[in-house]
Every structure is written in structure tokens, then in C-alpha cells.
């Protein structure tokens, strides 16, 4: 055995030696000599007189560039307006900013004309705009206009093609050469050239178009949107297919493609080559010749075998089981495959030269896709094989984030388009590229709230910030008493006793005026009283008086102790993006009634934290008031007891995480249980396995017993309406509660930091 090894070793060395003698010339590039060669490399010479060389421009010339007697800036801008039109449009030449100044960014959609039906997809786009918070019915205050003519399909061979658009447009008094108009388009051009032409004069209108090519794309003006099918959901949308971060992130196949092979015509260059990379093992590239009516006319020798292979694999199964998916151009540059791969967490490998990627103005596709070159198809297998597993894992997660943030519904695609345009209006109040490409995504981050990352609850870790060390107690008073009740006095006492309390803000929502300042208890922290309107959604208005990151939201009859507050605040600092609070409730799916159920009884799970006693980030006030459309807030105001559910739903929709419950003293429960018991009565079937015979525990009751059941069914209705509006149920359940480390441990009370939380 040993001798054999020795011989092998020697033979190996000998052959190496021989190789060197005879094949030296080729080898020297890779051999040990390359290091030596570097020294002998013919570098750029170090000129002896290099320090004497003159500068490329003398300082005077650099600092006083040009001739001030040139065209005045105003004249130059005026000249631009006539030079840079239509195909050379930019925001500064083709968009009238002054229309957006008075009323902000408002979008007007032309009224639907009779006898002018629009396709289902365009209908969805229009309804997304109507649902957006920027929609207006008044063209006078509008900044952006959207046609009622369906311009999505401009392939004149298609059934959806609308004729005589030019003529119709000329009839619109608001058209104004297309200024401040936004035109949506999914398909342009037709066989055989598939040009980007829309078949009518779009003038100075902004194009939001799928399959945009970089040649005709007007940077900073047009928006490239993804191609989506007519089944694409209006709202909500299916979630991505990545349920877990598998390690290693590799799936069964490395790279897959299944689709048509064009034998002739545009796009055939790439589609006709894809079969070359098929290896039948980890790279599956299946093509079929069957498409169009006369495919058999162009049939070649591969077709029959390929067609058989093609049928053997299921497209969806390939999507599920592959790490990378080839997304080649079709006849046009974009394809449905792009969104399909994105949703499936199958990292798209784009082979579509000259495609302006969807929302590339905002989205950094280098983090979620491999942008390949059609010309280098054969390098793709080795290139993707070399991508490090860590990067693959990051890619996969990023596809899911992007899918969910910008693509999963027509609403998201349309709203992203609008936000991108809105950001251009005031560059100093716009989202940085970082915001667009980091969770929770650009749509959920309002630059009007702040442009500083540290003011949002999402970026503390990424930027090494931490949330503020103090909180604002925000107490809402609705009782009709007109004087201060005992509970609220106790509450102010307890809260102001916390070392972390910076200020107390009282929202006085009664008809009677608040008591004079002398009547309020003296506390060590400043106390501000805000006179509120009597709307429920008011409690989440972004009041300027709130100056800390953390808000402790309280009802007037909430009972809390100082140590409860202290502990909960410290927990919140660990989870600043979530709601952290005391009393909780939970939701469940009721299969019998086919709707969402809601329970306030004791359960092993929780998904809603009552805002009668909860910490959350101040930003959620802004998001609640600015981001949610008016209709939704009106719904909440109408239902009388739903605003806290909406807040929980909103935060869950943003974070995709459950809220956090912290320990509460027993005493709290007992006080409340009496009242709450009658309130919730017997209605509402708790989910199976959660039958709870015992006393329910809930928020302090502020309604009469008889109102209890109405309140309960209202909350259940509210939950279902919100789920409908969001298009899915954002709430997430949790099975845990956070207690102090030594909570109820058998150790001396003296050692414990929060002994009072354990008192019965």
C-alpha cells in the first residue's frame, strides 16, 4: 500500500516536471511564475519629470469655469422646454410642477365613458388609483392625470386594442399635450418587430410601461413596470413561496427553464440557444417548438425529442425546486416568468439585453436577481454555480421581500409607480435607495414624516442607532365627567413615577373643557393637554407634542404600576418595531362561518395587544393617519370600537410579526374581570382546543353590560372588514409572554428587580 502511494506520488511529480519542460509557454500564465511575472510586467512608466507635468486645468480655470455673460439660467431653461420634448422628455422639461404645489400630489382619473369598456386589468389599475390616498375627484387640484381609455394592450392584432386613441385624446380638454399625464401599458408593438410604439402620440405623458427597452426609456421620467397577468390580484396578493431559510440554500435543481423555443423572429437568438445548457441533472432547460399556428413549418430535428421532454416536467414543480430560474426575453423584453420566479423565491437569471428592469429607479436588482447577458448564455451555469451559498440565501430572501413589498398585487404595482413619481417632485423629501431596498420597503416609509433613518422603527440595527431612552405617556380621556376621576389620577402618578417617562400628553376628547391646570396632579414630568376632536381615529393622530420615539398609549381607566411600565418599556427597546403591551386578545379562523373570529378570552395565543396599555413607536401614528386611506379611517370611526384592531393590523402588515405581551400584575385582572365577564357574554365560539370556561380577561370596560355583545360583534365585523380591505389577514399569533428574568423564581424577593409584578 505504502509503496504504491509512493509510486503514484513520484509519477505525478515526474509528469508535472515534463509538462513544465514542454508545455511551459501555456503553463507559465498559471504557474508560480505569474507572481514573478508581475514584477516584470510592463507598467506605466514612472516619468522622471512627472512632478513637472502641468495640471489638466489651472486652478483659475477650474474655479471660474465659463463665461458669466452666457445665456441666463432662466433663458436656458426656457430654451430646453422647446428642445427636449417627447422622446427626450425629462421631468424638468415635460412636467408641470406648479400643478402639484397647492394641493400636493393628487391623482385624477378621467371619468369612465359610456360604451367604452376597459379590460379587467385596466379596471384593476384604475381601482387601485381610486383606492390610493392620492386620489382626487377634482381635476382642478390634480397633479397627475390618468386616462380612462384602456391603453394596456397596444398590439393592434389583439382583441383588447382600442382604436382611434389619438382622436379621442384630442377631444379631452385636460390633455394639454400629455403634460402631467401617466399612461399605463403592458403590451406594445406587434409581430414581427414588437417595437415600443404605442400607436398614438403620447406627447409629454409619462409612460408606465412593461418591457421597456433602455433605448426608448426616458430616464427619470418614464417608469418601467413589470408584466403581470390578468389574474394578478387587486389587493393583498399571495405571499411568496419561501417559508424557511434552508441551509444550505440549494434546492434540487440549480437552474431551470421551461418555455417556447422561437425558431424564427425577434427573440429567437436567445430562445433558440437555451437548450444548450440542459444537462439533464441539475440544469433543466426545456423548450418546445409548439407555438403559433404554423410551427411545424419551421420545425427542425430537435423539435420532436424536445417536445417529449417538455411534457415530462411540470413548470410549477420546477419553480418550487430550483435555486435559479432563467428569465429570458420573449418576443418582448419582459415576461410573466419574471414575477413568477420572484414569487417562487427562484432567483431570476435575466437574459434580456436592454431591458429597463421594473422600478429600477428604486429597486436594486443586483440584490435579488442575476442580470445575465444574452450573449454569454453558456457562461451562466458556471457563473451561478460559483455564487456563494450565503449570497444565495440573501438573494432568496430579497426576492421575497421585493415580491411582497412591490409586486404581489396590482395595488402595490400601481402605488409603487405613483410613489416613484411623487418622490421626483421634491428630491429633498424623497426616499433614498436604501429605504426602497430594505424591509419594510418604500411604500411603508413616509418621507413626509422624516428623511432620517433613525426616526423610523425599522433601521436601528442596520445603522447602529438605538431608540430614544424615554417615552411619552399618551392618555386618552373620553369620560363625560368633566372632572378628574380617581383612576386617571392614579395612572398619572404611576406613569410619572417611571424613570423613563419624558412627558405626559393627555388627549381630552370630551365635550366639556378640560379642568384648569391647577386641578391636574403635580408631577415631575411635563404634562400637556390636547383638545381632541371626538373621533376614535384621533388617538393615533401624529401630534407634534409627542417628542419621543416611544409612545405609551393609555386609556383613562387603565391601571398600571410603575414597575410594570418600566419593565414593558425596556422590553419595547428590544423590539421597537412592534407593539408591546399588557392585555391581549386573539383572532382565529372560524371554518364553520367561513370568516375570522375574535376572542378576548384567556387563550394560549395572542395576536392583538390592546392600545389601552401598550408601547409602540411614534411613527405608527403617522403611518395610521397618512398611509391608510381615508375610507379605512372612516370605517373605524363608524364602528366605534375598532381603532386598536386597525392599529394592530397595520403594524402586523408592516412587520409581519406578532405583537409582544408582557407580564401584568394579577390585581389588574381581578378588577377588570368582573366587568368584562358580562361584556363578552356567551357569544363567539372560541376556536377548538381553546374552550375557556373561566373568566375572560380583557381591556378595562368602558361600556355598559348591555352593550357588551354589540361591542363584541362590532369588533368581529371590524376584523373581517379589515382583512377584506388588506386582501389578507395580516395579524400573526404568538405563544409567548415576556416576563422578568427571575419572575416567580424561587429566590429571595430582595434579589428581584421587579418584585411587585408578582404580588397577588
Amino acid at each position, binding site marked *: 500500500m505504502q509503496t504504491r502511494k509512493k509510486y503514484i506520488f513520484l509519477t505525478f511529480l515526474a509528469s508535472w516536471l515534463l509538462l513544465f519542460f514542454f508545455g511551459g509557454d501555456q503553463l507559465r500564465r498559471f504557474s508560480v511564475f505569474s507572481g514573478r511575472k508581475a514584477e516584470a510586467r510592463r507598467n506605466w512608466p514612472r516619468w*522622471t519629470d512627472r512632478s513637472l507635468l502641468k495640471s489638466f*486645468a489651472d486652478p483659475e480655470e477650474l474655479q471660474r469655469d465659463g463665461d458669466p455673460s452666457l445665456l441666463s*439660467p432662466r433663458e436656458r431653461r426656457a430654451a430646453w422646454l422647446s428642445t427636449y420634448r417627447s422622446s427626450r422628455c425629462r421631468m424638468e422639461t415635460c412636467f408641470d410642477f406648479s400643478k402639484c404645489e397647492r394641493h400636493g400630489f393628487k391623482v385624477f382619473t378621467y371619468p369612465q365613458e359610456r360604451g367604452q369598456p376597459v379590460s379587467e386589468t385596466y379596471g384593476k389599475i384604475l381601482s387601485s388609483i381610486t383606492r390610493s390616498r392620492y386620489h382626487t375627484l377634482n381635476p382642478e387640484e390634480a397633479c397627475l392625470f390618468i386616462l380612462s381609455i384602456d391603453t394596456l394592450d397596444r398590439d393592434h392584432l389583439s382583441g383588447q386594442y382600442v382604436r382611434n386613441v389619438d382622436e379621442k385624446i384630442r377631444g379631452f380638454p385636460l390633455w394639454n399635450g400629455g403634460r402631467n399625464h401617466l399612461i399605463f401599458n403592458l403590451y406594445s408593438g406587434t409581430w414581427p418587430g414588437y417595437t415600443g410604439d404605442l400607436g398614438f402620440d403620447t406627447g409629454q405623458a409619462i409612460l408606465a410601461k412593461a418591457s421597456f427597452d433602455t433605448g426608448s426609456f426616458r430616464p427619470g421620467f418614464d417608469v418601467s413596470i413589470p408584466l403581470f397577468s390578468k389574474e394578478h390580484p387587486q389587493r393583498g396578493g399571495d405571499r411568496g413561496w419561501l417559508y424557511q431559510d434552508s441551509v444550505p440554500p440549494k434546492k434540487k435543481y440549480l437552474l431551470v427553464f421551461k418555455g417556447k423555443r422561437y425558431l424564427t423572429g425577434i427573440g429567437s437568438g436567445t430562445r433558440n440557444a437555451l437548450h444548450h445548457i440542459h444537462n439533464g441533472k441539475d440544469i433543466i432547460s426545456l423548450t418546445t417548438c409548439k407555438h403559433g399556428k404554423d410551427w411545424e413549418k419551421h420545425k427542425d430535428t430537435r423539435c420532436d425529442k424536445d417536445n417529449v421532454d417538455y411534457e415530462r416536467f411540470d413548470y410549477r414543480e420546477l419553480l418550487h425546486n430550483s435555486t435559479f430560474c432563467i428569465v429570458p426575453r420573449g418576443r418582448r423584453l419582459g415576461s410573466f416568468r419574471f414575477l413568477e420566479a420572484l414569487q417562487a423565491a427562484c432567483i431570476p437569471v435575466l437574459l434580456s439585453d436592454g431591458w429597463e428592469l421594473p422600478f429600477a429607479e428604486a429597486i436594486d436588482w443586483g*440584490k435579488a436577481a442575476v442580470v445575465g447577458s444574452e450573449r454569454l448564455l453558456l457562461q451562466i451555469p458556471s457563473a451561478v454555480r460559483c455564487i456563494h451559498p450565503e449570497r444565495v440565501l440573501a438573494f432568496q430572501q430579497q426576492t421575497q421581500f421585493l415580491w411582497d413589498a412591490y409586486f404581489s398585487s396590482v395595488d402595490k404595482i400601481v402605488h409603487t409607480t405613483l410613489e416613484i413619481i411623487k418622490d421626483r417632485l421634491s428630491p429633498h423629501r424623497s426616499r433614498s435607495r436604501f429605504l426602497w431596498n430594505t424591509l419594510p420597503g418604500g411604500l411603508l416609509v413616509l418621507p413626509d414624516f*422624516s428623511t432620517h433613518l*433613525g426616526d423610523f422603527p425599522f433601521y436601528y440595527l442596520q445603522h447602529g442607532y438605538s431608540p430614544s431612552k424615554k417615552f411619552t405617556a399618551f392618555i386618552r380621556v373620553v369620560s363625560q365627567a368633566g372632572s378628574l376621576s380617581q383612576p386617571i389620577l392614579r395612572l398619572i402618578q404611576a406613569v410619572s413615577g417611571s424613570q423613563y417617562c419624558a412627558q405626559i400628553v393627555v388627549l381630552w376628547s370630551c365635550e366639556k373643557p378640560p379642568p384648569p391646570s391647577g386641578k391636574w396632579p403635580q408631577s415631575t414630568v411635563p404634562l400637556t393637554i390636547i383638545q381632541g376632536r371626538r373621533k376614535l381615529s384621533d388617538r393615533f393622530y401624529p401630534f407634534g407634542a409627542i417628542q419621543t420615539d416611544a409612545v405609551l398609549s393609555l386609556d383613562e381607566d387603565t391601571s398600571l404600576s410603575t414597575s410594570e411600565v418600566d419593565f414593558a418599556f425596556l422590553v419595547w427597546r428590544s423590539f421597537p418595531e412592534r407593539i408591546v403591551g399588557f392585555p391581549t386578545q386573539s383572532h382565529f379562523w372560524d371554518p364553520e362561518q367561513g370568516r375570522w373570529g375574535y376572542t378576548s378570552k384567556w387563550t*394560549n395565543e395572542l395576536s392583538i395587544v390592546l392600545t389601552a396599555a401598550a408601547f409602540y413607536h411614534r411613527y405608527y401614528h403617522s403611518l395610521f393617519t397618512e398611509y391608510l386611506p381615508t375610507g379605512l379611517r372612516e370605517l373605524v370611526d363608524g364602528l366605534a370600537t375598532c381603532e386598536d384592531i386597525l392599529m394592530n393590523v397595520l403594524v402586523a402588515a408592516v412587520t409581519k410579526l406578532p405583537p409582544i405581551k408582557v407580564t401584568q400584575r394579577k390585581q389588574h385582572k381581578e378588577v377588570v374581570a368582573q366587568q368584562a365577564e358580562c361584556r363578552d357574554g356567551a357569544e363567539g365560539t372560541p376556536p377548538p382546543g381553546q374552550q375557556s370556561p373561566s373568566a375572560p380577561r380583557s381591556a378595562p370596560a368602558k361600556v355598559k353590560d348591555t352593550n357588551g355583545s354589540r361591542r363584541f360583534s362590532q369588533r368581529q365585523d371590524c376584523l373581517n372588514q379589515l382583512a377584506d380591505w388588506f386582501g389578507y389577514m395580516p395579524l400573526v399569533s*404568538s405563544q*409567548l409572554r415576556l416576563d422578568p428574568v427571575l419572575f416567580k423564581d424561587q*429566590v429571595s424577593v430582595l434579589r428581584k428587580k421587579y418584585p411587585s409584578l408578582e404580588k397577588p
Partner: protein
Amino acid sequence: IMCASAKYNTRGPALIPRMKTKHRIYYITLFSIVLLGLIATGMFQFWPHSIESSSDWTVEKRSVHDVPVVKLPADSPIPERGDLSCRMHTCFDVYRCGFNPKNKIKVYIYSLKKYVDEYGMLVSNTISREYNELLTAISDSEFYTDDVNRACLFVPSIDVLNQNALRIKETAQALAQLSRWDRGTNHLLFNMLPGGPPDYNTALDVPRDRALLAGGGFSTWTYRQGYDVSIPVYSPLSGEVDLPERGPGPRRYFILSSQMALHPEYRSELEALQAENGESVLVLDKCTNLSDGVPAVRKRCCKNQVFDYPQVLQESTFCVVLRGARLGQAVLSDVLQAGCVPVIIADSYILPFSEVLDWKRASVVIPEEKMPEMYSILQSIPQRQIEEMQRQARWFWEAYFRSMKAIALATLQIINDRIYPYAAISYEEWNDPPAVKWSSVSNPLFLPLIPPQSQGFTAVVLTYDRVESLFRVITEVSKVPSLSKLLVVWNNQNKNPPEDSLWPKIRVPLKVVRTAENKLSNRFFPYDEIETEAVLAIDDDIIMLTSDELQFGYEVWREFPDRLVGYPGRLHLWDHEMNKWKYESEWTNEVSMVLTGAAFYHKYFNYLYTYKMPGDIKNWVDAHMNCEDIAMNFLVANVTGKSVIKVTPRKKFKCPECTAIDGLSLDQTHMVERSECINKFASVFGTMPLKVVEHRADPVLYKDDFPEKLKSFPNIGSL
């Protein structure tokens, strides 16, 4: 396949058979002799060639004036004008770049020539100081090749940095006669001052056909997005003047304008702003009555006051950078160097390196029409953000503006990223200043997912020889509903694991892995057998955990899949007397670590532990046979920035079977060792990543007055 990246070894710790020492020496000697011979032969064979081929370059001591002269006939061809429709896929020949394992393009530089026209008149200055620096930088970089046949990108040595210093037609002719010109394909030109009077084009006027242009001062109409590169206008002042970085804090002026040649219309708008807002706005102009010998470019005046330039820029929070005749202004570089936030007022200007740099983080862009609103716009920016922008501005200057070398390398890197997009530099690497890179984390498991319960977890038991106790652990753990597999890591090389028939019969697969060496790191190896995301690391003596506790731990991990979720908690403290970290295992109100004797975590961290542990920590742990759990805590906290989650109440974590050998002294040694570990790791990591928290996770209804049988996890905390 040649991959640049190392592949994970997925087969388990390698077992290297040790050769007998005698043989080893023999082999090594033999090998070295052969190797020496090889090198000698190789040198003999190749040395003469390299000397021969570089003969005309070996004369290092040469002057620029000695370079060969090339005469351009009047009728030599002129390239086409620049093609505005060029993009990488239409005008660039990627086949020249090829697939290479380093994912680096190869750049060739033409040798320097002096070009004259038919009458012997110079076409341009041979080369400027800056262009020479730029070419030197490229030549010193790893992009450079001297082999014209292997090059992917060609950089002419014809200096076109300043259009005013050259003759347009003749320069174009000079370009056209370059040996590999081929319509300018894959040629890169650097230009900083384009255009000339009266219309000042925003791109170089020299006809250049398909050549890429790295230009300063592009407008959106001349910039071919994804093809050209927008570069800064280099300010030679940055080499002359040293402005040390200024910390955050208020500065004397709020807005400062320092440019000399402003159009009167702009100047009057600025002066209106000054009149409105008083002393916080300072508008400077050139000085009219300077004494002789004082360079005018280093002084600025406002009325009778004289200021030093560029030092005065450091006195202001915001500095206005207005367009002049050209869009690109050298003042931008000075402003960034001073850590002053540039307020860019130049409609349609493509900012330098805008393809990769996020200028919103370092500057304020204001449309020309909104100039009168400048003050209120700037006032609305939060102070904290201003401080970050100042830091960011300075960082952009240091990384991408400060020298011709920085400009050249950034340009090449951008082109490189387009050709090898799958190896491109990320947004964070381009944009995050070192301070942010240092203090921030990028969580590898950043997507908020709650993994499906159904996949369950894999229990990994590290054992040496305590078979009886091991079997008890196996039996106990197998009762946990979500357990999907049990992996026993047999760390004893001298003893075989018990026969199959002796192992407890459990409902899930049980695998035994035998290791090559008794190392603690074997516990954290990413075994292929682990098919779930969740791993439960458990010692072979942890028999006191109930099934409810373990199941609950798994549920908690599902809610925090990027954290360590464990049972016994520990704390690190700063010992003020000793001035170092101290390990604490007493009953404290805080935790910062959990012991991996019983903890859930994501399998990803096994990869990190095995392949990405910083410094020599992994070997150190194996050598000391201690602290692998502390190392894991450091690792996870460092990469996620998050705290651990301790679950369920404290128990006495000692196996009842173990005899009480651990007297006081042993305990103390143990504590000292553990403290040492913390200090050692903190120094290797360069920071203390552990986060201290005061909470632990319990079931929602823990200790609540509620029927036990209705609780999901009733058996929690029993002793």
C-alpha cells in the same frame, strides 16, 4: 469549474490520515528538491523572453519629452460622433472579457506618444499631471494587463481630460489610429471638462464612435445610462490643502456659497437669500483688491472681509454647488472634503458615480426653480440627519474624490460590476462609511419568517462516554412532539458507540456521527444530517427539561428564528476594579447569553461557527476545551445585533447522578476561565456584541390562575 469562492465542505470534519513522521520528512525533502529544480529550469527558460520583450520599457528613467512622435496625416480617418444609443449589449464586446475566476476585467493602456499634425504642430499637451496619475493608478491596480490580446478594456494614453487643451479633429484622428481602436469598441476615455464656448456641450466633443466615456458634467441627455460613467471633476486643491475631518456640531454659517463665476441671476438670488436670512447665509465672491503674490484661488471675499479658501467651507453646514457654464464643478470636491453638505442646484446634472452612490445620503438636490425656497427646505432637515450627511459627504470624498487614483479605480469597478454583475460590489460596500460598517449589522436571516411548525427540529447531542445519561436524554427528548431527528455526535475516538440494539427505541430517526478528533467545535458542525432549520443543541447530561419546556422552546425559536433560544441564562459584567469583563452565573435580573447545553438556534449559525468564526477563536476553543457556547453567543449577537431569548424559569442545572466533585475551588477556576474567554473574544471581535436584556419568554398563561389542563404548556418550571 473554477470558482472564486471556497465551497463549503459538506461531508463532515475531514479526517486526515497522519503519515508516519519518517515518511513525511522523506516526502517533503523530495518535494522541495523537485520544486527547486523546477523553479530553476523555469527561470532559465522564461527569463530571457521577458527581458527581451520588455526591452523598450526597461529604461525606467525617461522623460515625457522623449516619447515617440507620431505624425497624423491631414486625411487620416476621423471616428464617427458618439453614438447616443450605445449600451453595453450593443456597443461593448463582452467576449473580450471572458469568464474568469477572479471576476476582474483586464485593462490595457496604450503607450504614450506625442501626436503632431502634418506641420509638426502639437495636437495637445502630451499628458497632464492628473492623467499621468490616473494611468499610473490603473497600471498599479489588479485590473491592469500589459498584454493587449488579453485585454477587455483599452485606455488610450491620449489625454482628453480638458477639452480646451486639445484640438478636436486631430485628437479624434489620433484616437482612430490606435492599434485596437475598432470603432472605439471597449475603449474608455476620461474627460472632466467637456464642451467649450459658447454652448458648452455636456459631453466631450471629440468624435469617439463607440468608446465609453467617463465624463464629468454629463446631463441626462448626453449620459448613456448603463454605458457611460459619470465622474467628478477633480480638484487639485484636495492634494494641496489638508483639511482634517471636523466632528459633528454646529457650524458658524448655515448656507455658504463660495463659487466665483456665478451668473448674475444666480448671484442676485443668493444675495436675496442672504438679505432675508441675515448672518447665517454667507455669499462669497472673488477678491478684487488682493495684494500681489496672494493666489486669488485661495481667497474669497464678502464685502471687505477676506476668507481662506477652501478652509472657509468647514465653517458652514451647507455649501451651495451651482452649475456654471458646465454642469460638473470642481467645487463639489472641495465641499465634500470640508465635510460640508453640498446643496446641488444644477438641473439635469448626472451626479458623479450616481450609478452606485446614493447621493440622497450625502447631499441635497434642489431644482433651480426652487432656489428661493432653499433656506426653508434646508431648515426642515433634522439635525441628526445633517450630521450623518456631513459624515457621508466626507466619506464620499475620501473614497471616490480625493485622488485621480480613487476616481480611476471607482470607474473601473463600476464597469467591472456591469460585466460581472453576479460578483458586483453591493450598495452597502459602496455607500456605508466605515463608521456605519463598523457599528451596523446586516442580519443574514433578515426576512421576517415564522418557519412552519411541521418541519420540527433536530436535536444534536454531543457525547463522550456517558452512555447511561445519554440514553436518558435521548428518551426524554424523543417525547417532544416537534422532534424530527436525533443526532448523536460521538466525540470519543477510543471507544465505539454502543451497538444498535442497545440504543433506546424512539419514534424518530436516530443517527450517530463519529468524529475524527475530540473537539468541542464538532457540536456546531453543519452536518448534512441536519435537515431542519432548527437545531437543539443539548448536552448528554441535561435530563431535567420537560417535554413541555422543550416544545415551548421550539415554539419560541420559531418566533425568533435568528436568535439563540436557550434555557440556562448567563450574564457578562464589566468589572470596574479589574477593568475587564467578568462572567456571571448567579441569579441575576439580566441575561446576555444562553448556554448551548440546551439551546435552539438556526442551522445557519453552524455554518458561521465552522467557517466564518473571526480570528483564531475556533481553534482556541478546541484547544482549551471550553467556552464554545460563549463563542456561539458572541457570533450570533455580532451578526444579528440581537439579544438571546432565555425561556422558562431557572432550574438547578446539574445532573443528579454527577457526584459532587466540584468543590468551591473548581467552581472558581471555572468562573475565571469563562471570564477569560469573554475578554479574549471581545478583543478578537473588537467590540462587545452581547446584548443585555431583562426579559425571558414564558407561555402566555404561565402561572396564571387558569386550569392547568387547558394550558398548552402546563409542565413548565417544575423541579
